[in-house]
């Protein structure tokens, strides 16, 4: 930030610029809706009026909670599998050279595009959606755990070895905590990706969920509901990200690594 920008920023209260940005976006939305005059773009006011109807509806709330449950479970499974794999890759060249090509091949594949195939195996229920969420959230967690484990200072590990610590407990008690700041950077991206794959999986296999409401409304040309659901999902993303940042600061406050910007193209 330049000195001039800092001075201009200091004159404002910290919460004000984001608020102004949101208001500006809403104003553009409102103006566009009136200019385009198409049913496909309801105005902002109408969309916000739709929100209480969705959030007050038992069935819709149940759908949203169902989505969140799947997402949380999928993300948890992804972390539980990816962190050990990434750490093992970081500490063993053999493991890294075995797994790296697989990661490179799967990296550009949109995970939600695998949904139709997975549905052939696992049906349209929870299992398929969970698997897609796990796949979607895993890569950044594996990658960052790998980088984190690779970057652990060799002398730190030597210091633990001199104390008589064995290989397995070094991985758990030295490599894992030392790589944790980097792992959490990957988790932050993983959370956003699991939200995205969660919604997309429900678009393809419609049964329940936030994505189900959204895409059903789209089919029925209920555009206020579509836009309101986009708002709900966006808000969920923000809440999850803020909550995660709080948790991260509490977990790795000892780290002096600079905060990474969490926004990633999906």
């Amino acid at each position, binding site marked *: 930030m330049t000195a001039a920008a800092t001075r201009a920023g200091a004159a404002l209260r910290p919460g004000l610029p984001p608020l102004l940005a949101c208001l500006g976006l809403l104003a553009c939305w409102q103006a566009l809706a009136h200019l385009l005059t198409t049913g496909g773009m309801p105005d902002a006011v109408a969309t916000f009026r739709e929100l209480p109807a969705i959030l007050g509806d038992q069935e819709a709330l149940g759908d949203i909670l169902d989505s969140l449950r799947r997402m949380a479970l999928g993300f948890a499974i992804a972390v539980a599998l990816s962190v050990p794999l990434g750490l093992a890759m970081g500490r063993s060249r053999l493991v890294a050279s075995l797994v790296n090509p697989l990661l490179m091949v799967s990296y550009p594949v949109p995970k939600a595009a695998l949904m139709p195939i997975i549905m052939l195996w696992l049906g349209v229920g929870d299992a398929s959606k969970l698997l897609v969420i796990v796949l979607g959230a895993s890569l950044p967690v594996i990658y960052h755990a790998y980088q984190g484990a690779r970057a652990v200072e060799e002398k730190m590990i*030597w*210091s633990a*070895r*001199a*104390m008589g610590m064995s290989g397995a407990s070094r991985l758990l008690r030295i490599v894992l905590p*030392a790589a944790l700041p980097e792992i959490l950077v990957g988790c932050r991206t993983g959370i956003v990706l699991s939200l995205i794959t969660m919604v997309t999986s429900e678009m393809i296999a419609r049964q329940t969920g936030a994505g189900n409401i959204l895409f059903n409304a789209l089919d029925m040309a209920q555009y206020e509901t579509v836009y309101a659901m986009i708002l709900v999902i966006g808000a969920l993303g923000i809440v999850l990200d803020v909550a995660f940042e709080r948790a991260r600061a509490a977990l790795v406050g*000892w*780290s002096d690594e600079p905060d990474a910007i969490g926004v990633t193209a999906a």
Partner: protein
Amino acid sequence: MAQAALIDPSHPPEQSTAPRPAAVEIAGVTKTFQRRTGGTHLALAPIDLAVADGEFVSILGPSGCGKSTLLYIVGGFVPPSTGAVTVGGRPVTGPGPDRGPVFQEFALFPWKTVLGNVAYGPRQAGASKADAETKARGLLARVGLSAYETFYPKELSGGMKQRVAIARTLAYDPAILLMDEPFGALDAHTRLKLQNDLLALWERDRKTVLFVTHAVDEAVYLSDRIVVMSRQPGRIKEIVPVDLPRPRHRDELLLDARYQRYVIDIERLIEDPPEEAGA
């Protein structure tokens, strides 16, 4: 080569320490690295060195002479290509709590507080949390950091980090300290202060110390003997016993002609080009 008055090659330094048992024996140790471009690089020519129990020995030489590699081999962190190291009569096959390293990079555990770092070794050795912390507090008092036990490493200056690292190593009571340019990353003032503190600590415990450095004055101030190495390949050029009274005080030493003589002579030794340069 200018022959030094105090460096007398006709008196092998082993004689002065012969009555004491050898804590570390380095016998025919070499290290060869595979080069990326193919071929090999001989980093250490055969090294033979015996360090007596309770002796403070510095390994001094220009960068690239393999002095740190030699220390890592004694630590068991790096295997020798040929030859063997025995510590307390047992061959070294890997790291162990009988040899405590202190690194230039400090290598503290950043997720642990100062107290947690120092208590880590005793905990690893099976001490209860209370016992480990009591021990750690005692050592933090000795390095003058009692007020900082709840701090994290990132909140400390370089000098304080190295004090914590020394305390962390002393906490598991290794018989031998392996110090790898421990003060190399510190500013001149902090460096002098830590040298004084290390001497005070050492004069109390008289642990065996292998101390790698490239600073001549540091080596003369601290050591009983100085192993001067040269490079290409790394080998021992000369072993210089430092016959200065202890306890040593810097202000007295700086005025002492013998101290000055050691510094000058050893600097000359290092400046001399290796006899087999380019060979």
